[in-house]
């Protein structure tokens, strides 16, 4: 990876499919795009087979636009709906076995830092609530205990969406699902608190109602993971199939949940805070200078 990997060999420009020429010419490699400009540049992920109106798919679209260095990023996913779109993106993707994403990511991140000591390579796990908090729970927690330097993003639809509606540890108490007809007997796991206790240096909980905020959180989590340790984002990404939310009410649902149990929450260690503030201050200055030019 690296920018040199997204440069077409001289002479081959006219033999490449148009999609790739567009990615190189109008894509986001080598530049920082603003998520508010989605639709005005060639995106890293476009067509995908997730359900029409799926909020998880929207979150993934914003995720790719928010990557600080897409050309130096590897995304890890696993069984579950998210991988349907993740595997279509123009960013290297590794499919971990169900549950072992964070173990694979640990090895990968360490290998990359040995193989490319002078380069920053970002490793990001995106997996479902079942993948991270149920079946992959042990490996998720241990990657945090070991302070592995990568980002974990949980796209929480509060159900096993991909396999037709089993309850997960993240489903709310009392909820009746297709394959949990008696209603869930236990409380929703407090993932954010677990992450904080287990050693994550940056933790956020978000209901994706504001694209700018999603992008900011993702960027912060990735930047902090480079230097300090594990980072975690818990995102509410409703499943309009299993929870029967009509597509046009998906955003209203996200807003309602934001007022209830998905209030925006962000926590980081002091050193992370200092580090991010410094970066963001410099960026602001640079932007100001550019405007003046």
């Amino acid at each position: 990876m690296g920018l040199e990997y997204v440069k077409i060999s001289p002479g081959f420009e006219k033999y490449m499919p148009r999609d790739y020429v567009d990615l190189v010419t109008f894509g986001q490699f080598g530049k920082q795009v603003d998520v508010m400009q989605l639709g005005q540049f060639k995106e890293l992920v476009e067509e995908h087979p997730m359900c029409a109106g799926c909020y998880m798919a929207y979150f993934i679209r914003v995720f790719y636009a928010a990557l600080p260095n897409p050309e130096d990023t590897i995304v890890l996913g696993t069984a579950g709906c998210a991988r349907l779109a993740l595997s279509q993106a123009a960013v290297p993707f590794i499919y971990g076995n169900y549950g072992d994403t964070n173990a694979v990511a640990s090895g990968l991140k360490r290998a990359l830092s040995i193989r490319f000591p002078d380069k920053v390579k970002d490793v990001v796990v995106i997996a479902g609530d079942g993948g991270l908090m149920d079946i992959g729970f042990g490996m998720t927690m241990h990657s945090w205990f070991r302070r592995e330097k990568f980002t974990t993003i949980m796209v929480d639809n509060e159900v096993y969406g991909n396999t037709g509606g089993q309850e997960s540890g993240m489903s709310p108490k009392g909820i009746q699902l297709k394959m949990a007809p008696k209603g869930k007997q236990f409380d929703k796991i407090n993932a954010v608190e677990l992450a904080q206790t287990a050693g994550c240096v940056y933790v956020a909980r978000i209901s994706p109602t504001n694209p700018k905020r999603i992008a900011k959180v993702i960027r912060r989590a990735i930047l902090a993971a480079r230097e300090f340790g594990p980072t975690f984002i818990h995102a509410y990404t409703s499943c309009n199939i299993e929870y029967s939310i009509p597509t046009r009410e998906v955003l209203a649902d996200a807003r309602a949940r934001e007022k209830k149990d998905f209030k925006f929450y962000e926590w980081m260690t002091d050193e992370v805070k200092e580090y991010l503030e410094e970066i963001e201050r410099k960026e602001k200055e640079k932007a100001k200078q550019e405007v003046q030019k």
Partner: protein
Amino acid sequence: MDKEKLITPGPSGYMPTPGAFMGVELPPPGKALLYGEIVDEETAMREAAKAMLTRRNPTIFPGPLVLWGWNAGAMEKAKAVLELAMEIPNCRIIPMPDYRPKYPKIDPEAEINPNHPNLTILHNKIEACIFVGVHCHYANLSLRMIRAGTNCFTIALCAEMGHEDAMVSLRDVHAEEIRKFKDVLVQVRKELGIEWEPKLPPENPSLPKEDWTKISPLDFGEYAALLMPRKGEVVEESE
């Protein structure tokens, strides 16, 4: 058994035994594979050249290792591939820029995907092809699939040790070796009496993206009724 012709153009049927299981061994340095047997490089090159010159719709499938200019070696190799393409009459170049699955489907005239290479090969009726710059694990996967489902003669110009499932497999192939193969090809072309002025293959015909705003339900023919809601119908539930 006729060991010489262990690996021949297919279709050899769904899930054929891999070359390696049939006893095909990778060639030592300086040697090559022809139909699964270890032979001199020159012999293999001549047979590969003959296939590219005489079979229908010869095509080169360059992979990411030559398409992307990630180092000087890759760019030089890319140049050599173009020089080779120029010498093959009516040759085409169909790239494999990466290995990701494509939704909903690839455009078989614009690219080839290792997960279903037969779409491109059958659509374009390709009967001879060259793999170059494709990472070995994906070349292995594709070459066996092509042998299973098509009558395409496969040639692997491998930068590593070669591929058991290709009809011709050369090893340690970089820019210099590609140029050597080109010289052999030009020689064989002359011997066969084929006249050809070197020229570059046609450009990629990638179609403009479909304009969804112009699609009408009527485009869906008898299925249109499934798409158009009945009068007054409001779909509330997604189940």
